[in-house]
């Protein structure tokens, strides 16, 4: 079976103030997987996503999205940042935030019109937030805010989705709603890459996994590589996780 590579990372090194955060990462992610990036705090999981997306400049290395640099492939990539990275007291509505997902395809100066609004409403519906479209974003719960961010990425209608801890601080209902959407995306042939913290749910939610702790430790199908050996290498302790399935 010939797999198309969605994301290829080559020799990527990132440092803040001389201390390496990511060290010589080589990584290739095949198309169509739902992949978790796991690792301890400070392992560089968010940094990896941000450097792939060009938000952080790496010291060395390169990234290719379907074989081309990211700057040429922006329309194929969508990003869901950490919920805590923005000020939710910003004066705007849920629908308005979701509409921001259309800004990239609109380009400079052009304003979103009826078509963009329709797409955004559909995305809101998909995440079950249509009833909240006119709500000021500070009046949404944490889980609802996360769904808004997800809807904003869905509007981009990309081939690859990067998500930074989408399950952080959300309740069980929202977590299930989100993972169902992610599984739907995979079914539609999309590639979904998620920074994830809860090791217990990795086998249940994801089919691929990357272990990361400054260095790249392993990447592969969950059923092959999600084992005590890799967990120990990543977390430094003998992590007792019963590998299911």
């Amino acid at each position, binding site marked *: 079976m010939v797999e198309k590579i969605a994301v290829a990372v080559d020799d990527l090194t990132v440092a803040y*103030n001389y201390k390496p955060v990511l060290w010589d990462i080589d990584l290739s992610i095949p198309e169509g997987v739902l992949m978790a990036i796991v690792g301890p705090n400070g392992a560089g999981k968010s940094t990896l996503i941000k450097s792939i997306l060009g938000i952080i400049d790496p010291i060395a290395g390169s990234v290719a999205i379907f074989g081309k640099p990211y700057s040429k492939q922006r329309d194929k990539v969508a990003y869901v940042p950490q919920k805590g990275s923005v*000020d939710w007291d*910003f004066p705007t509505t849920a629908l308005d*935030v979701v509409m*921001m997902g259309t*800004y*990239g395809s609109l380009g400079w100066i052009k304003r979103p019109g009826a078509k963009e609004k329709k797409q955004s409403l559909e995305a809101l519906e998909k995440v079950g937030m249509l009833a909240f479209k006119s709500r000021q974003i500070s009046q949404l719960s944490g889980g609802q805010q996360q769904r808004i961010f997800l809807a*904003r990425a869905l509007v981009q209608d990309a081939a690859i989705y990067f998500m930074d801890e989408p399950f952080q601080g959300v309740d069980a209902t929202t977590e299930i709603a989100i993972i169902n959407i992610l599984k739907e995306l995979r079914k539609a042939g999309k590639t979904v890459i998620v920074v994830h913290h809860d090791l217990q749910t990795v086998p249940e939610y994801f089919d691929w996994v990357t272990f990361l702790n400054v260095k790249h430790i392993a990447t592969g199908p969950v059923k092959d590589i999600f084992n005590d050996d890799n967990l120990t290498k990543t977390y430094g302790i003998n992590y007792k996780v019963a590998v299911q399935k």
Partner: protein
Amino acid sequence: MDITQYFTDYTLRTITLGTAVLGAICGMLGSFAVLRKESLLGDAISHAALPGIAIAFLITGAKDTNVLLLGALVSGLIGTWWIRGIVSKTHLKTDTALGLILSLFFGFGMLLLTYIQKQPNANQAGLDKYLFGQAATLVESDVILMSIVTGVSLLVLLLFWKEFKLLLFDKDYAMTLGFNTKFIDGLISFFIVLAIVIGLQTVGVVLMSAMLLAPAAAARQWTNSLSVMVLLAAIFGMFSGVFGTAISASQTNLSTGPVIVLVASVFVAVSFIFSPGRGILFKQIRLIRNRRELELQKTLYFMYSIVKNHDDISRPHAIRILNNFQGFTKNTLSQLEQKNWITIQGANWSLTDDGFKKASNLYTTNLPES
């Protein structure tokens, strides 16, 4: 002073127009400074403009307003650039960088001002008016310049509205969408500096940041929409200018700049207290109302817990058994009766069907309806 003076007195009309336009542009652009959480940047920039004014005078030897303001613009931009540089290149935080640049530039500016004042050049008198501003020196050409700058910023604002909003809310995301965030950032900063510089003559370096922040802070209280906020801030700023000028013109020896700033502060104070959504007053009222509502629910639930052990829910119970229960007052009882949740006969109360239904659903309303 009477109102006809506004239409007959040329100077007063010019000053009023000038301060109104200035208030509008400051409110408009100040909204962005506030939302970028860079309120203090305005203060640093206006102080950083002082040496530019002094140097422009030293080079040209003339007190042409436009030349001096050009000097202010250049040194304000250098100050902004340095602040950004310090933040991105060192471990220092923004507040430290702002404080450093503010005092460094302002100190240098003061040094130059004292030096200039010791010069024999008779032209030097009055440069210190840039410290606290002097609206009386506004002439028609100044007002025209202000209007042009305001017009251009409004145009840029409308043109890049979408980009500004995106950058203010989520810069990283804007980057991934392919927008040049450095350009948008620079554009916003440039226009904020521009607004500050054209206000220096009227309000002065020391008070300028209030012109920028007060209308925006007041406007934020009244709305949850960015466009309405920017519009309101412009209106608040404009009225601060007009009222401030009128008040200072009605008395002798009242400096216009400080009065405008005080009027703007009144807008802030009123907004903080009286705005319906975020104001202190209505927040307090809502709090008290919620608390009353809760008392009522607590009483109803207590009654429900007594009643549900009986087969007949409308069976009367003595009011006295509520006595040990905190939160029970005559008032709560009559309110419950008004809502048709209970009926009272003499010293007894009984739950109605409505009341029983309400009480049994009281603490399950958070669950989504499936």
